[in-house]
Every structure is written in C-alpha cells, then in structure tokens.
C-alpha cells in the first residue's frame, strides 16, 4: 500500500487539503464526509473575492493551490460586484458548486466517502493508526487531517444559540459534527462572543426566489444584489450584530437595510429574522426560508472545538501525524480562509509523511500573515472574542496597514515568487 492521507470532513478546507495532498504526491487520498454531500456550510455560502479575499485567492493561485478558486470562478453568477463595505466580490452559485467540486476532486484521483462519520480514533504510541466509522468500518492511514469545522452540535446551538434551527448541517440525519482532535485527547478551545458567552452565530440565511416579488428578483439577478431599507421598528440591534460569526458584515448598512445577494437562492445577510416581520417588507409578503428552515428563530452556532496548532497547521499535542485546516484551525472565517488553511494543512501533511520539514507561509503574504496573526491573537482572551477574515473587520484593517491588500495581479505574483514559493503546492514532495 502506498502512503495514505485520511482527511476527516469534506467542507471547503477538507476539499482543498485533498487537492494539495494529492498534488504533493500522496498516492491515496481519502476524504471522509459525514453527510451525503461535500462543502458543509459552503453549501449556503457564495461570497468570494470580496475585499482582501481577492488578494488571498490570487496568492493561493500563484502558490499553486488555485483549483477550487477556478471552480468557484467558473460557477459564479456574478463577478466584480460591490455591496456595502465590500468591493470586487464574486458570488458562486450554491446550487451548482457541490457537483463541480466533487467532479474536480474525483478527477484528481481523490476518493470521496460520504455517509462516513468517524466515532473513534485508534491511537498507538502517539500516532493515529486508523479512524473507525460509525457503521464499524476501519479506515487506516499514515497521516490524518482534521477539517471537521466548528459548527453545532445541536447541544451547542441550544446552549449558546436559540436552539436547533434545522440548518444544512443536518445533525439528526447524519449525526452531529465530530472532532478528531478531541478524540485524540487534545484539549480544544471555544470562541466567544464580545459579551464573553460561547460561540458565534452564522450570519446569513437563504430565501426562496419564487416567493419574492419579481421586480426584486430581476434587480438582483441583473446586479447581483438588492437593498431594501428597513423601517425603524425592524432595524437590527447592535447586540444581534455583534453575536455574528461574520464580523465583516456587522456594519451599519447591514443593520438598516435588508441586503439580498444572488447566489442561486436569495442570500439574506442577516443571522435571522422572524418570518412575519420579514413579510412586512414590500415585495416580501410571501417570502419563505430555505436555510435554515427555522431562520425565524436563529442560525447555526459556530466556534466550538478549535484545535491548538502551529503555523504549519500541525495540531499541537501528543499526536505526531495529525494536521488541521479550516475553522478547526482557528477563528479565521470564510470559504476563502478555509481553502487557504486547508491547502497548507494538506500539503504539510504529505511533507510529514515524506519525512520533510513543513512549509510555513511568510508574513510577506497575506495568507501567511493571517495564519500567524490569528494564532497569536487567539492566545489572548480579547482575541478569542473577535473574528478574523480577509474580507473585513480587524484582519482586513491589518492587511491594509501592512500593505498586504492589493488587486494588482502582477504585484501578487511577484510577492509569491520573491518568497520563492511560486507553484509550491503543485510540486511533488514524495
């Protein structure tokens, strides 16, 4: 048997890790996914390339980990659009993205296992030998990667949120999210809201296009977005804004207006709003939620089970063959961010299999700086209450201060080549 990497969790991070692992020369890449489809919360995502995410995406392309960004670009409904606080965004079609990603992975020779929720890790002498699936199947591997995310379980949504709202994670059907790091006996941490309570709430919902007035939909399909001013009594409170996982959208414009984006469904840029209130708005009289089904009440809760890790995405602790990526790797929010950490984690996992030193992205790159900065910030109590993203809030400010934010493709490719990392994720290491 050749060297095998087992990736637990088929969201954006796991999918990205599978690709870089394969491109680095891993003979067998097995991607275990708990549900029936890839992408997890990415199934209700859509926003790419907004603000600093553009820079991060282009850095990844120059580094040789551009496959998933190309898939997103090919499946975008809108490119280069602007909405309050956000420039040059692309919106991928959430109805088309999963099969496209799945095809890309399978074509690269990656094995995708669905209905494969792990329940146990077989550990011997500080190394994971295998993971056991809920149905009893044993999956052996040389190196393991935890990209299980930080969403749910229902108990977390009940304790720290407004209860189970029947979101795309679908805990009752497939079993709640698991954590391989936790199964290895490594202590994990939880992110906090600014008021110190645990978790953060996902920040957007999906509405059905068919239930909204045609003139709003026409506007949205033409320009990518529709903005409906909220009457005073429906304006969103500060506390509700600050509880959101996506701090980049916790802006005044998002509290005073209903902002709708065209991602195939209608992406409502609010964590939740009671249906009867939503229906008071002109053109929304018959609107219906698609995700979460109970968007009336709340949204999924995130940021539990964050793994301690170094800047190479190796999980710190007593296990020598465990890496991580995505939200599991810390408070770096978003699909672009998950692809960044997942790609690095997957690549470094293969380096570890080959007995080579891992690579660390330098702070001359936005992607490298973010990975280091978020790890350092998370060492402080205040840092655990914030959210980090290339697209806004504290980290985008830092990007601008350090001149890391640019949309100049030449500058980005020069930046990557002067770090000596051009195409690094496409070079075989094994």
């Amino acid at each position, binding site marked *: 048997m050749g060297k095998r990497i087992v990736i637990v969790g088929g969201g954006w991070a796991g999918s990205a890790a599978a690709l870089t692992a394969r491109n680095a020369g891993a003979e067998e890449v097995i991607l275990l996914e708990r549900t029936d489809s890839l992408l997890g919360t990415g199934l209700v995502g859509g926003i790419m390339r907004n603000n600093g995410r553009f820079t991060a995406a282009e850095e990844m392309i120059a580094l040789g980990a551009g496959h998933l960004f190309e898939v997103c670009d090919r499946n975008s409904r809108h490119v280069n659009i602007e909405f309050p606080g956000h420039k040059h965004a692309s919106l991928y079609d959430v109805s088309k993205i999963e099969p496209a990603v*799945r095809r890309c992975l399978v074509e690269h020779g990656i094995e995708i296992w669905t*209905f494969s*929720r792990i329940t146990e890790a077989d550990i011997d002498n500080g190394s994971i030998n295998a993971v056991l699936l*809920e149905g009893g199947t044993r999956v052996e591997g040389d190196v393991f990667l935890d990209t299980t995310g930080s969403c749910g379980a229902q108990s977390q949504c009940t304790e720290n949120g407004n209860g189970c709202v029947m979101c795309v994670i679908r805990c009752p*059907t*497939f*079993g709640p999210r698991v954590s391989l790091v936790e199964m290895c006996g490594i202590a994990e941490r939880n992110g906090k809201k600014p008021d110190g309570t645990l978790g953060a709430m996902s920040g957007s919902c999906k509405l059905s296009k068919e239930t909204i007035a045609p003139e709003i939909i026409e506007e949205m399909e033409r320009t990518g977005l529709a903005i409906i001013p909220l009457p005073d009594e429906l304006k969103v409170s500060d506390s509700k804004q600050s509880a959101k996982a996506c701090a980049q959208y916790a802006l005044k414009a998002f509290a005073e207006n209903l902002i709708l984006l065209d991602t195939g469904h209608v992406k409502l840029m609010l964590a939740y709003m009671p249906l009867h209130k939503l229906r008071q708005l002109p053109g929304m009289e018959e609107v219906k939620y698609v995700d979460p089904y109970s968007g009336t009440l709340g949204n999924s809760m995130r940021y539990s089970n964050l793994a301690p890790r170094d800047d190479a995405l190796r999980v710190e602790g007593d296990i020598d063959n465990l890496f991580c990526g995505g939200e599991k790797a810390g408070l770096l929010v978003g699909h672009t961010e998950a692809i960044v950490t997942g790609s690095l984690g997957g690549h470094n996992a293969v380096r570890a299999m080959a007995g080579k030193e891992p690579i660390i992205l330098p702070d001359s790159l936005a992607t490298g700086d973010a990975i280091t900065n978020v790890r350092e910030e998370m060492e402080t109590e205040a840092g655990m209450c914030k959210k980090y993203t290339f697209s806004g809030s504290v980290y985008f400010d830092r990007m601008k201060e350090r001149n890391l934010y640019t949309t100049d493709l030449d500058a980005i490719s020069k930046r990557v080549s002067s770090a000596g990392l051009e195409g690094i994720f496409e070079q075989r290491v094994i």
Partner: protein
Amino acid sequence: MITAECINCGACEMDCPVRAIAPANNQYVIDENLCIDCEGYFPVARCKLVCPVNACAPERIKYLAKAGTMAKKGARPVVFRNGGEPAGEMIPS
C-alpha cells in the same frame, strides 16, 4: 413510549403485565426500564392493543431506530472514485 394523544383513560395501566405504566403530569407514561414489550406475556404489546386512541407505542427499539442517524440505521459509506460508479450501499434493504 406513549404519545401526547393520550387521553388519560388508564386502560394501559390496568392491562400492563409488568406494571410499567403509571400516570404522570399530563398523561400516562411507560417506564422504559420496566417495559419488556410484553415478550413472554402477549403476542402483541398489550397497551398498544387496548389503547383507544393509538397513543401507545411500546416498541422502544423501533422508536430508537427511527430516531437514530443514518449510520445507526445501517448506512454504509458510498465511495466516489475516478472511473467508476459510486460504490456502496446507503440503506440496507
């Protein structure tokens, strides 16, 4: 279990061979530690037979199986790989 359709008639309590049923706040309940699904007493669970509103569902195992995840119901991994049809069996027949 006894569902919320229970009308508090008490028929199940009287007929239960192991006295596993008792009134609670709003309805009768089955003590699942005592209930034996009438095995060895009756071919069909007695409370289910006597309940006038079909509120008694004593087969705990069936209930737990339906409430479980797909893997608990026996779903096996479905594997997607290059050059082949998806292999595996989602739900056992």
